[in-house]
């Protein structure tokens, strides 16, 4: 089962939930693969403390012009939706930061004057956090495109043996999140009982509906304003699977890098419970 943890709003506790869920399931003997797809700032490792054994470069294609064969017809620049090429008199200029690596310019060039070069934009790192297989992507500083790193990270899923894949998604509902979440069997939406939390949960709900992924909600920092979230969940017919109360103890543990389910066994049971309810309600679960 592929289980994506996402939120819309940043800082609601995606990583907290994803990490505690992974640890609780592993503690029950499940084989878990943890995927940190927040490639712009992967931080689940701070809690899971994995030993990373492998580092693989992620590259994207970019045009390399053979100025000798080029007759400056401009087909490439015309084709490029991202304006990563421009043709001036006697020269083709390329703007690698704008290139999405689609390879279209190579195909449309009538003189075959464009080769596909490669540019490294990040890395995939693989290792273990005790019995949990741990993978993360890391985008190089200054690179604008997170999606190719996430895509490369997820390509590896075809060959894995683990029964449960937990995907820690980035914040928001834009392309990198969609890439992280698509093809998941279930989406766990983490939110907080604030107007921002509610607003962005609504966006996240729309997104997973659009992707056709069943979902459930976790309210983090739960307290007296929970109605903000429960009203919306009722309206949208989405189950609230867990409430994590606003607690100084839980926050303190987080602040020193200790996942609270590790030291508070009752939480292990609660996270195990979430998994059970997802399995019962989710036809795709094995």
């Amino acid at each position, binding site marked *: 089962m592929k289980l994506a943890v996402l939120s819309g709003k940043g800082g609601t506790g995606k990583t907290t939930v994803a990490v505690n869920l992974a640890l609780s399931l592993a503690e029950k003997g499940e084989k878990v693969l943890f995927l940190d797809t927040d490639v712009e700032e992967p931080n689940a490792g701070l809690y899971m403390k994995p030993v990373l054994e492998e580092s693989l470069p992620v590259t994207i294609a970019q045009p390399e012009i053979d100025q000798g064969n080029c007759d400056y017809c*401009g087909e490439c*620049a015309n084709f490029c*939706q*991202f*304006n*990563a090429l*421009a*043709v*001036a*008199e006697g*020269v083709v*200029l390329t*703007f690698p*930061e*704008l290139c999405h690596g689609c390879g279209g310019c190579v195909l449309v060039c009538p003189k075959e004057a464009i080769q596909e070069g490669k540019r490294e934009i990040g890395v995939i790192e693989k290792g273990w956090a005790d019995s949990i297989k741990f993978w993360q992507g890391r985008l190089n500083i*200054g690179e*604008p495109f997170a999606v190719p790193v996430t895509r490369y990270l997820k390509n590896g899923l075809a060959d894995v043996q683990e029964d449960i894949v937990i995907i820690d998604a980035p914040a928001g509902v834009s392309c990198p999140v969609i890439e992280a979440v698509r093809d998941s069997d279930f989406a766990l939406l983490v939110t907080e009982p604030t107007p921002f939390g509610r607003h962005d949960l609504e966006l996240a709900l729309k997104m997973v509906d659009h992707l056709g992924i069943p979902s459930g909600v976790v309210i983090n920092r739960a307290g007296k304003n929970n109605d903000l979230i429960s009203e919306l969940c009722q309206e949208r017919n989405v189950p609230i699977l867990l409430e994590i109360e606003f607690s100084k103890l839980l926050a303190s543990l987080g602040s020193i890098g200790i996942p609270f389910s590790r030291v508070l066994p009752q939480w292990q049971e609660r996270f195990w419970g979430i998994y059970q309810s997802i399995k019962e309600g989710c036809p795709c679960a094995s």
Partner: protein
Amino acid sequence: MRIGISAAGKDLDALLDPRFGRCPYFLIVDTETKEFEAVDNPGSTAGGGAGIKAAQAFLRLEAKELVTGQAGPNAFEVLVEGGVKIYQAPQLKISEVIELYKNGDLKETTPAGRGRGAR
């Protein structure tokens, strides 16, 4: 002299648009006869790389001088490669900008700060 001006409208009464990449029109003007033509700037609707797209289109208009507010670094690179001289002018009516140009009151410009196009 045939020059191009980034314009907010389609005639000599329109204001100069200070943005090169996102201006809606290029006004191509013969500074002697005041004859002009307005050309749509395809950069105005580009998702990203607007300056590059605008500069590419501008090169096809065969005006060797451009008067605008600011051109970003990517647009600047394309224009300079294409042999275009770039002059900076304030946000005045196009007819007033032409007078400034003819009197030699405009100075050549350097690229503006890096935009979203090239983070």
